């Protein structure tokens, strides 16, 4: 053996021979093909449309490059720039309110022994079932010109910032709540024991242990609330009145005035803060991961009468308010003529009276949402699998994992107009997709890709990394092991993804509003158009149809998990 002293080389790369490449077997080709397919999908469905949007902002209506002219025009039009401040104002205000209420509620759920926690929590997350137009419709019923509770506004109109803020608080509440519940339940009991042992006062413990412990959760929650409120279209569309925000501006420019370049500019303006908050969230999440170690002891709250009652009271009020919002739309959808004739009726559900699509929009929604769920789960999970476990094409795999994160930063509305620019471009061979159900499916899947992808890759990272190696040594092709082992092991998460994609596809409207045709109109888009036409009761009814459906799907999901899945998962028990 050569024992001579080795001099560290400054240029090892130059000396080392090129990487020896294994010859590709059939499996490797199939794997590479799969990676390529997912990569192409993300490029076509996410990257290229955004590029088209970007390019459009620098063109005039005739498609000629005009540099920054559109931006100059935009920023010199006060009626347009006013929307930036309006948007920032309503988004900030609703963020402060939602995060405050959400924190109190989450604290009550995780750190106190208040009664009825299960019921309160269930009520608090109901907004997740509905499209964002629903709270706005309820607000109109409650506080509108003929509203029962109009007096509570002291003469202010619900149409405008007040309505938007209230609607956004409702709409963003469950998202904020879930993040904060997670953050608060990750507490390490040992810290609290230490504080106790040192005789720290409760108030001080709260400031020195509790709050710092959830600071990342608070930042994430605030960022999510802000982004959702900023980019949401449904609430502002229904109760915005003459108060313009960015989201409605995009719509007006593109659909109303057919001013595509200006629409693109507003879209980019809307994209900027969303992108920024996306980066903040990423940063925060990386920090948060390390917080809870395997040795941490989970905190279990001890009963404390006074505190528990206070929290119960506050949380009940919040939950009641949420229930009232949902209840109002539900109730109104069965009422003949609010508030004059309160007899019950089903006429509001006869959508053919108010919309040429009638109930077809609902069946369209079902078809669309099921396609997104089924195809999406397969693409997302398969893609995440290939990214995590694949061996070939390392660069493309990395590109996929980056591209998969991008949609989270892109508001639906922006993705929607990006699709118009990209798929409507005369040179695009994929133009035939425009106006079909397929484009709605692709768009919705792209829009919600990130969350689904992240849950898939999280679970896949937990799956033993050597299954593929073992299966190669046993001469079993990887897809067989994927089907026989990986998928069964990940089944609960796959079901999560399926339900998530279905439910979000059902409630989303923001990007579809640009892409539907009378034949492919979905229920959520119908809510907007029916409301636009002044038939608010039918709009409420259509929104409720969506709520019933998502509630049914979630219920079915629970049943499947409890009774169906358990059978196939016997191996999980010890």
């Amino acid at each position, binding site marked *: *053996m*050569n*024992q*001579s*002293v*080795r001099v*560290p080389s400054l240029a*090892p*790369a130059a000396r*080392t*021979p*090129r*990487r*020896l*490449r*294994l*010859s*590709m*077997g059939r*499996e*490797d080709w199939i794997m590479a093909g799969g990676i390529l397919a997912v990569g192409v999908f993300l490029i076509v469905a996410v990257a290229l449309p955004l590029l088209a949007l970007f390019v459009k902002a620098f063109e005039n209506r005739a498609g000629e490059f005009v540099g920054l002219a559109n931006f100059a025009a935009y920023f010199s039009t006060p009626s347009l720039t006013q929307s930036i401040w309006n948007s920032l104002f309503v988004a900030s205000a609703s963020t402060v309110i939602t995060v405050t209420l959400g924190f109190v509620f989450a604290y009550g759920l995780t750190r106190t022994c208040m009664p009825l926690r299960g019921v309160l929590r269930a009520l608090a997350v109901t907004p997740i079932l509905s499209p964002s137009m629903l709270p706005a419709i309820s607000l109109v019923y409650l506080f509108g010109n003929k509203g029962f509770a109009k007096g509570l506004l002291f003469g202010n109109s619900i149409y405008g910032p007040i309505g938007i803020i209230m609607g956004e608080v409702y709409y963003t509440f469950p998202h904020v709540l879930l993040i904060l519940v997670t953050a608060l339940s990750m507490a390490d009991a040992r810290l609290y024991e230490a504080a106790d042992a040192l005789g720290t006062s409760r108030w001080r413990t709260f400031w020195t242990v509790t709050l710092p412990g959830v600071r990342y959760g608070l930042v994430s929650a605030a960022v999510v609330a802000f982004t959702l409120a900023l980019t949401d279209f449904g609430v502002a569309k229904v109760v915005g009145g003459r108060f313009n925000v960015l989201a409605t501006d995009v719509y007006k420019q593109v659909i109303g005035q057919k001013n595509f370049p200006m629409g693109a500019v507003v879209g980019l303006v809307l994209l900027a803060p969303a992108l920024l908050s996306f980066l903040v969230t990423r940063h925060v999440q990386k920090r948060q991961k390390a917080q809870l170690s395997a040795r941490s002891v989970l905190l279990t709250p001890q009963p404390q009468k006074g505190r528990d009652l206070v929290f119960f009271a506050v949380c009940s009020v919040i939950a009641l308010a949420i229930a009232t919002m949902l209840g109002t739309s539900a109730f109104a959808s069965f009422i003949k003529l609010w508030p004059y004739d309160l007899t019950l009726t089903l006429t509001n559900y006869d959508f053919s009276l108010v919309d040429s699509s009638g109930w077809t929009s609902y069946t369209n929604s079902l078809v669309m949402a099921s396609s997104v769920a089924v195809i999406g789960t397969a693409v997302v999970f398969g893609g995440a699998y290939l990214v995590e476990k694949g061996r070939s094409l390392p660069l493309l795999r990395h590109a996929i994992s980056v591209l998969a994160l991008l949609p989270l930063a892109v508001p639906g509305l922006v993705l929607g107009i990006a699709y118009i620019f990209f798929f409507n471009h005369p040179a695009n061979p994929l133009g035939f997709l425009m106006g079909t159900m397929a484009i709605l499916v692709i768009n919705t899947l792209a829009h919600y890709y990130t969350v689904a992808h992240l849950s898939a890759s999280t679970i896949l990272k937990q799956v*033993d990394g*050597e*299954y593929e*190696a*073992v*299966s*190669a*040594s*046993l*001469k*079993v*092709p990887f897809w*067989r*092991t994927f089907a*026989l*082992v990986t998928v*069964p*092991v990940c089944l609960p998460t796959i079901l999560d993804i399926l339900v998530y994609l279905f439910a979000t596809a059902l409630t989303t409207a923001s990007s579809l509003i640009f892409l539907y045709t009378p034949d492919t109109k979905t229920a959520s888009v119908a809510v907007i158009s029916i409301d636009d036409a002044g038939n608010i009761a039918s709009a409420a009814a259509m929104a409720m149809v969506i709520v019933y459906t998502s509630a049914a799907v979630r219920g079915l999901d629970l049943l499947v998990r409890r009774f169906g899945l358990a059978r196939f*998962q*016997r*191996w*999980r*028990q*010890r």
Partner: protein
Amino acid sequence: MTAPEEPPVYLRLQNISKHFGTFHALRDVSLSIRKGEFVCFLGPSGCGKTTLLRAIAGLDPQNSGRIEQDGRDISRLPPAQRDFGIVFQSYALFPNLTAAENIGYGLRNRGVPGHEIRARVEQLATLVHLYEHLHKYPSQLSGGQQQRVALARALALSPGLLLLDEPLSALDAQVRQFLRREIKEVHRRLGITTIMVTHDQEEALTLSDRIVLMNRGVIEQVGTPTELYRTPRTAFAAAFVGQSNFLPGRLRADGTVAVNGVPLRPGVGVQAGMPDEPVQICLRPEQVELRPAGAGGYPAQVTDVEFCGSFWRVTLSVEALGCRRLVADVPPALGGALALAEGAAVDALVPDGVAQVFPEVFPEAAA
């Protein structure tokens, strides 16, 4: 180089190198393993054992170098086209399949008829003493049982080569002992060429026909357990395999070494060097002889006595050798006779021709 009566070379590694970025995990590793041999890759953590094993399997191919298995160049073959069974440290058992299904996994894919699979699975289960647990899922098995399922699964297709990456490291001491014997037994019965990665020298010494001692991406020494123990070629080998005392010394013109001015006659294998060159002298604890004080030797003082069952481990301070920590192993009978206890005075003797001499610093440390 292969003697006629020895089995033919089954696996031949030639100049295997592997780097991760600028970090060299393997440098120019060459090695031949004969058919039916049981070889252990031994070395400290991070020395490249797993990397070498994975290169042989094709899981993380080497950057350069050639691998030949059974006369066939497999350097560029993907793992699925190589012929090996493998057991990972994590076992990588399929959690949703029973022990029987895990073992029969590869057979089922080959379209072997059901009854034949069952027969083969039962045969393998008997081999690894797992028969009564075949219907259980991995989560219902103990660590040792899981390990045996993984072993049986790796053997199911009768591979020509068995690769084991620290298969026993996740188990507690007693189970390890037991499974070590079981692995040896399986190897004896099947005669399958086996490579096992371990950083446990005892495991390597008791199991292997030959040990491949690795350090920092290179092979330090290859040899039978006794060769490695008796004639380590480097200070690293002497330190890593078995216990050793290291004393600083200097070469002398007459072929002896001086430790603190005291001449010692070293054993075989001493390399000639410049007189007065600084060296390290390695003494195994059992090579140090103890006698009653005044019976002849270097006066020593006992600083610690450890009872180890079949022998006593005595730590001494020997002023004559300038050594404040010399470890000696003493048979219990002698230990009793010397009335060994902390503070006791004895004489220590280093017989001629046993000490090993190495260059002063670990060559690696100089790099």
